[in-house]
């Protein structure tokens, strides 16, 4: 590729280029850049033109309607589980919302438990106890390396369908029941003045933010610390409790009860939701545990030793030295794990949990045949949800990021 040049040739070429300051215009990088980009514009333009014209021709040939008018049409099918009231005569637009809420529900449950599992097993990798360390390793290596679909099937077909029937339900203190048809939880039904307790909870949550800001300011000024965590927990539990005591407990518990062949009343968690939520939490939890382990491992041991040498207690070392630094590594990884959990929740289609993907790309697409509209509407929802997650996690990341001075 590279021919050895004699000294004369090198000199000659140097003379040529220095004598002739304006090289050929097609060797100018700017001209080339414009040329290539114009080429790309035309290439993409032709690509999209041919796709769109093909789509229109194909749709005309098969008689598929276009546009979003189907959203107003009556769907004519029922949905297994809905968070808002829904009847089979309602529209596709409402089905979209029902599915979206179900997706949000399973994602939120999954993210919550995956984070807990991930942090427990991630920290357990540093336990003093050999068996706990090994248990954490086994958990991560098993559940990370088995496809999520198989895990969903395992929980749904092998574990949850092996539960006893309604009459032999497993029960916890006659309030929580678990059988092959689902998990039955008691429900709180509020009375007249119940809104006071809800309002008190709201006040407590706002109060936590105010308290945190005040405590940080006081620590910056005086160096005194304030037990923010304990005070927050006391507020969240205490204020609503106080409101309940003052108003004389204006609520009653609705317990699930066996009537005929099944339990009624209370909150019913269908097995599809349970299987999907368990599988998502366990699978993503394994990845989060890896992230947490990596985060803690990234901190030099000198940090711990330095903290010990200035006399911090072990608990304070974790809280003030290790965790804040580990979070810098963990939070970006958490962000992508949460996003992939939301995307993976589409596996609901495999077991029939009515999430957005299942009710919309699954059933609505089949009934209307409008593939492009349904798929793109669904994709956009996942994009938006992931953007919201990304936005929140980036805010959180900025809070824990290293402030360089």
């Amino acid at each position: 590729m590279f021919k050895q040049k004699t000294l004369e040739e090198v000199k000659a070429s140097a003379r040529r280029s220095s004598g002739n300051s304006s090289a050929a215009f097609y060797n100018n990088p700017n001209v080339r850049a414009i040329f290539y980009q114009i080429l790309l514009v035309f290439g993409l333009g032709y690509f999209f033109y041919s796709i769109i014209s093909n789509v229109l021709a194909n749709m005309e040939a098969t008689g598929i309607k276009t546009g979003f008018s189907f959203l107003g049409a009556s769907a004519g099918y029922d949905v297994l589980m809905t968070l808002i009231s829904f009847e089979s005569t309602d529209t596709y637009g409402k089905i979209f919302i029902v599915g979206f809420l179900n997706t949000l529900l399973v994602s939120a449950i999954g993210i919550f438990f995956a984070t807990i599992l991930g942090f427990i097993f991630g920290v357990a990798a540093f336990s003093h106890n050999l068996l706990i360390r090994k248990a954490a390793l086994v958990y991560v290596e098993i559940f990370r390396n088995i496809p999520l679909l198989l895990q969903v099937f395992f929980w749904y077909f092998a574990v949850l369908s092996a539960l006893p029937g309604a009459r032999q339900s497993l029960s916890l203190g006659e309030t929580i029941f678990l059988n092959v048809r689902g998990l039955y939880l008691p429900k709180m039904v509020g009375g007249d003045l119940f809104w006071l307790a809800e309002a008190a909870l709201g006040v407590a949550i706002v109060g936590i933010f105010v308290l945190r800001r005040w405590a940080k300011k006081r620590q910056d000024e005086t160096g005194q610390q304030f037990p923010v965590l304990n005070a927050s927990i006391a507020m969240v539990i205490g204020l609503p409790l106080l409101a309940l005591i003052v108003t004389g407990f204006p609520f009653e518990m609705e317990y699930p009860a066996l009537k005929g062949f099944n339990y009624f009343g209370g909150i019913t968690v269908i097995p599809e939701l349970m299987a999907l939520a368990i599988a998502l939490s366990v699978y993503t939890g394994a990845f989060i545990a890896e992230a947490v382990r990596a985060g803690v491992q990234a901190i030099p041991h000198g940090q711990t030793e330095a903290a010990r040498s200035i006399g911090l207690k072990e608990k304070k070392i974790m809280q003030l030295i290790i965790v804040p630094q580990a979070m810098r590594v963990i939070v970006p990884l958490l962000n992508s794990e949460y996003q992939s959990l939301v995307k993976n929740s589409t596996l609901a289609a495999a077991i029939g949990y009515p999430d957005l993907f299942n009710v919309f790309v699954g059933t609505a697409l089949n009934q209307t045949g409008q593939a492009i509209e349904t798929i793109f509407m669904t994709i956009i929802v996942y994009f938006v949800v992931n953007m919201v997650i990304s936005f929140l996690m980036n805010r959180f990341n900025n809070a824990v990021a290293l402030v360089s001075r």
Partner: protein
Amino acid sequence: MKDFQPIADRPAPVQTVGPVAWIRENLFSSIGNSIVTLGIIAFLVYYIPPILDWAFFSANWSGTTEDACVKDGACWVFINAWSYQFFYGTYPLEEVWRINLMIVLLLIVIAMSFTLPKHYRMKASIAAWLALPLIGMAVLYGGWGGLEVVSTDLWGGFTLNVFMAAASIIVAFPFSFLWALGRRSQMPFIRSVSVIFIEFFRGVPVLSLFFMGSVMLPLFFAEGTNVDKLIRVWLVLIFFMSGYMAEVFRGGFAAVPSGQYEAADSVGLSYWQKILLIILPQVIKISMPNILATFVMLFKNTTFLLIIGIPEVVQTLQTALSNSYWLGGHALEGYLFVFLVFWASCFGMSVLSRRIERTMNTDKRD
């Protein structure tokens, strides 16, 4: 004057080496730890023997039909009877040598990329890798040189998972490399097109991509063209993979020290000489662990093909479980078997990736 009273001798230091000290340190360092240790040991002692008994000692190993399963334990006969379908799907028995041939070729190419003499290893192995999917399509589908045509409807089983994953990542390789370059480019339009492409395919659920491949893509082709479903899904997987791999390569490009780019510029290499001769070899070396991790993700995601009705291994298992001659409830055996196959492959690859990371780490020569 009082008598001199020496202080009592201090006890000898606790032994810090040897098995006793090791056990004390790792298992019984505190009361809490001791309780946990005993708890875990009790749990293992309670549960391991029945599991071993079920899986090995009272399991049924030989036979060809369900009637052979007489003992209480696992019915491995089920796996035995269906093993052909689990691995090869419904591919005709007399043609199965073609699948085996492709597996052998795949292994040869993998071995080649590590063992060929260094001065032409890169060129030869890249050429071999890129040729492999085409050869695979030709051999598996047939229809030339006396080979019978085997319709893609008959392809299936675990080998389909392997081939789909391998064929997608290989073809995605050059594309993802271009997308990564595009994302680093100075040209604003090329850069924004690359960013949109990469973020689109990374941002959507892979299942919706499969649906695109199976129901939306046919609308994109000109009227009358009938592209095989498997090929459509393959196309979608290639796009999906090139989005992910582009991000892997982007990390690799960023990790090459800028001195390398500047040195290449200063010896007068052109853009493509610089990228192909200087930067790319270093990028591949740096990104190797991430490439393998991405491949593992893709490989696990090939099970999602079941949802659009492609008979990969999990779909084959479901078919086997609902077969009317095997209704004895062998779900546990079946899932365990597929678990083990996937776990062994994925875990093997992650071990391999760690080893490659170590051997390829030539930066620190001390």
